[in-house]
């Protein structure tokens, strides 16, 4: 960092956020938003922990009436939901959003406004969740909300609180996933090839990709259940052709990967700490990365092992047993690699490493019981007992919470600039470790002795009082452990020693900047030539690296970006595999738009909650308007960007297209989500069709091809027209662009009109039968897609007219993204047509 302090100050000004309340609402920078995510998630963790303590008091002795069954059900539902949805994933996402740019050598994440939107959506979703206490409608159908118990017949308003609060949190999770994936793929420092990414970054990349699929399926499922509850559709209603088990399939298709969505980042934390404390090159780097790739895939193939007791064909169960057992290979590989790294390395046993060692012990125990319950006959014996409670707490607390504490002790000095107290840290570890084992180890035995889970009390005749009392005392100790951490963290803020830039002598880039880091993170973007960039800086790797340190193009880009630009925020874009400089990315500064968009979305959810559909509609419209205002291209931005001259200095473009553009990758992420939603709908259709005695149901004619086929053809025509427009921009023939975009818009409008007409003339409704529910919702899905396409197409046409004088700007990327969406819409329309109109004739 060799620039003058004046340049540094100007750069800091560009990255500074407004102070006070306006700054709170308009902040978009990854560092404060990441910290907010973590703080909010930790607050929810404390709430969820208190609920657990109340439950343990209830269970301390037999035949206890301290809480009563109804309150127990509520606390048990809120505890599980809080820990799974409001704590673990958001905390890890917050840690990722905070650390990622620092770790990979970037100045911010790919879509700063989306980060802010995600945070507000998460906060509002969590508040809706807990507002249920204020109105006396606390969710009580379990954190898994099995139907029919969670249907409107058995669960009132509390079910809506669960579904709508959760939906907002899922939206937040999805936005963070897109951020994480695109940031990793496009913002890595020059030289940080995929073979040199820190293992924490590898873990986050795979986690982000998993969230895109898994959370979308859950979001789809929660929307379907809310439709059942609010509009009386019939997806999960067996009396009208629906199927209760469909919910379990969709929920667990999300639910099992969710375990690994929490676990993989935790293993990334462990790998980072193990490397830093062992102070040697990571042994088994490739094996750990390969294990994470395998885990990412195979975790999607395990969902049925949550349903071994649900009456599925034994052959299905056997297939899933195999993958459930073999995923232990991947987890075991990582465990052996960590042990190999620590073996003989003489590390200092500071608090981060103690929590890592505790993690290894507890996770191995949880993994072993996981392999046991992957075996169907064993699972059938213990499925509804405390053995399962013991297993998943060993995995969740041992496998996720311990690494989180390790990470906090490791990275808090970077975030706050203050060291934590090592003595308190060790006390925290031992109290937490002993308390945890005292709480959960006896539960294995309790399970064997027949203690049923999810039940508010147990009879004295089971003779389980001593085990339960021990578990309750252990839970108290666990609570004291958390309290010790809070005391340590609070004490460090006022009395902690000042943290140096690299207190652990660690290897990754975040330790090269001051503690706490400046808002722009890096004055000069770093260059990387090794997996351990601080231990083996580029100058020591002359002649070895793939991008030679002296590479003039790289040096030119880095020089141009040193303490620059100062007129606006920007970072370097590199290619996804080799991390070679490709472009400079303009990054937006503070704005209220993400906050207002999140408020509008929350109003829509509250409208549905209160059955005030006018309010819900108003909220939805405001969300759309807010989003359009947010993404609408602005001339002053392009003028300022082009006027700064940095592109010429760096020799890189500022308005790239294709795989060079972050927007292109963002759109790819959105399309992956939409494809997952479509897949979940198609699966639901055939699952319900499988169990239907007659399809379509009696009295419903087979669908006609005519109008729907024409609509699908129009969707394809719209995609072709968009494609023609895109090609003409690429070939520099702009006069065809406007007619092509206008034709695409007309085709899209005709598609929506015909689809709407086709639905209006059906002699059944979404309420008559599950067939009608599926038929309508699948077509609503493509109408929604097409409407989004019309908005994008309209904006692109407007931009094409605006840029028809040949000025450089956003048009090439806008038309490319619009075309990508149009192609997906055409594919979705064809799939929906094939499923709803062709398949009933064939199957």
């Amino acid at each position, binding site marked *: 960092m060799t620039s003058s302090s004046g340049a540094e100050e100007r750069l800091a000004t560009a990255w500074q956020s407004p102070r006070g309340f306006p700054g709170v609402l308009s902040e978009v920078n990854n560092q404060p938003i990441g910290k907010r995510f973590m703080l909010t998630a930790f607050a929810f963790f404390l709430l969820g922990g208190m609920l657990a303590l109340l439950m343990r008091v209830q269970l301390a002795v037999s035949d206890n009436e301290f809480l009563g069954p109804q309150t127990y059900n509520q606390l048990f539902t809120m505890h599980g939901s809080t820990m799974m949805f409001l704590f673990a994933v958001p905390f890890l996402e917050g840690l990722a959003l905070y650390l990622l740019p620092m770790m990979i050598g970037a100045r911010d994440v790919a879509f700063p406004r989306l980060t802010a939107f995600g945070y507000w959506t998460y906060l509002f979703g969590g508040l809706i969740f807990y507002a249920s206490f204020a109105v006396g409608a606390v969710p009580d159908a379990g954190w898994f909300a099995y139907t029919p118990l969670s249907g409107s017949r058995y669960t009132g308003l509390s079910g809506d609180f669960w579904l709508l609060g959760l939906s907002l949190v899922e939206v937040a999770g999805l936005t963070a996933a897109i951020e994480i994936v695109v940031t990793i793929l496009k913002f890595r420092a020059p030289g940080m090839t995929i073979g040199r990414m820190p293992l924490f970054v590898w873990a986050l990349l795979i986690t982000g990709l998993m969230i895109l699929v898994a959370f979308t399926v859950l979001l789809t499922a929660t929307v379907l259940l809310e439709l059942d509850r609010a509009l009386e559709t019939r997806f999960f209603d067996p009396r009208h052709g629906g199927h209760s088990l469909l919910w379990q399939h969709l929920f667990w298709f999300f639910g099992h990967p969710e375990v690994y969505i929490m676990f993989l980042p935790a293993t990334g934390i462990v790998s980072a700490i193990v490397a830093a404390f062992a102070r040697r090159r990571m042994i088994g780097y490739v094996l750990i990365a390969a294990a994470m790739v395998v885990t990412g895939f195979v975790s999607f193939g395990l969902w049925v092992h949550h349903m071994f007791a649900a009456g599925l064909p034994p052959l299905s169960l056997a*297939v899933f047993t195999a993958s459930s057992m073999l995923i232990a*290979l991947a987890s075991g590989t990582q465990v052996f690699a960590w042990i190999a790294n620590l073996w003989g390395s003489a590390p200092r046993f500071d608090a981060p490493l103690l929590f890592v060692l505790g993690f290894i012990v507890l996770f191995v125990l949880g993994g072993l019981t996981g392999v046991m319950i992957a075996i169907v006959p064993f699972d059938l014996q213990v499925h509804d007992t405390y053995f399962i409670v013991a297993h998943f707490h060993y995995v969740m607390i041992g496998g996720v919470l311990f690494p989180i504490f390790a990470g906090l002790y490791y990275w808090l000095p970077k975030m706050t600039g203050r060291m934590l107290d090592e003595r308190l840290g060790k006390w925290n570890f031992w109290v937490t470790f002993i308390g945890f084992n005292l709480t959960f180890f006896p539960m294995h035995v309790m399970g064997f002795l027949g203690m049923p889970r999810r039940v508010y009390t147990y009879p004295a005749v089971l003779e389980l009082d001593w085990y339960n009392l021990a578990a309750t005392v252990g839970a108290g100790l666990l609570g004291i452990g958390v309290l010790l951490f809070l005391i340590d963290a609070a004490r460090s803020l006022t009395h902690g020693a000042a943290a140096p830039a690299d207190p652990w002598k660690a290897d990754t880039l975040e330790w090269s900047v001051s503690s706490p880091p400046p808002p722009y993170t890096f004055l000069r973007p770093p260059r990387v030539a090794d997996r351990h960039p601080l231990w083996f800086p580029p100058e020591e790797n002359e002649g070895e690296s793939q991008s030679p340190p002296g590479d003039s193009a790289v040096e030119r880009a880095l020089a141009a970006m040193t303490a620059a630009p100062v007129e606006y925020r920007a970072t370097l874009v590199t290619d996804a595999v080799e991390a070679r400089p490709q472009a400079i990315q303009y990054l937006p500064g503070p704005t209220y738009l993400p906050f207002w968009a999140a408020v509008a979305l929350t109003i829509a959810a509250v409208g549905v909650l209160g059955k005030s559909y006018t309010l819900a509609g108003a909220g939805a419209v405001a969300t759309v308007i807010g989003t359009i205002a947010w993404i609408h291209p602005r001339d002053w931005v392009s003028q300022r960007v082009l006027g700064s001259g940095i592109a010429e200095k760096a020799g890189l473009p500022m308005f790239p297209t294709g795989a060079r553009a972050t927007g292109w990758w963002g759109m790819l992420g959105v399309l992956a989500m939409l494809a997952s939603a479509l897949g979940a709908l198609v699966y639901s259709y055939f699952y319900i069709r499988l169990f239907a005695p007659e399809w379509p149901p009696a009295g419903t004619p087979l669908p006609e091809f005519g109008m729907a086929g024409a609509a699908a053809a129009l969707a394809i025509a719209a995609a072709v027209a968009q494609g023609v427009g895109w090609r003409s921009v690429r070939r520099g023939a702009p006069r065809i662009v406007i007619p092509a975009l206008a034709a695409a818009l007309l085709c899209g409008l005709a598609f929506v009109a015909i689809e709407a007409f086709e639905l209006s003339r059906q002699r059944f409704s979404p309420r008559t039968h599950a067939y009608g529910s599926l038929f309508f919702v699948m077509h609503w899905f493509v109408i929604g897609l097409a409407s989004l396409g019309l908005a994008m197409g309209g904006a692109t046409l407007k931009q094409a007219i605006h840029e028809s004088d040949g000025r450089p700007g956003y048009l090439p990327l806008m038309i490319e993204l619009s075309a990508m969406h149009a192609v997906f819409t055409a594919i979705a329309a064809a799939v929906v047509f094939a499923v709803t109109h062709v398949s009933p004739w064939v199957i």
Partner: protein
Amino acid sequence: MTVESGQGRAALWFGFLGGAFAWTAHLLAAYAIAEFGCFGGLAGHSWGGISAVAWSIIGVTIPAVAIAVAAVWIAGRAAGEFESNAGELERTDSFLARIGFYSSGIFLLVILAQTLPVLFFLGDCR
């Protein structure tokens, strides 16, 4: 094979992701056949004393195994070539090849393990 050539790069990515693709396709197919076949009446048909459900799973396993084996072989061969040529383990092509070799190997194992139960359910779905 050089990684700079389009063919070499395609082979490298196939080695990296081929096993994952084969496993995903196999799991989806095996699940669909078991679930929909057993409930949907496919189990009622048999040939040579083996139910149509079992035949179908065996049928989808053969190409899945072939793809996974090919991925392991291609990734393994590429890893050997790149490392002997460049001698640097952090090279992206070498990294991709080795990660593909390990992960495709595990995916191959999982595919075989997933097919093993079929041997116990040759006759029907019960």
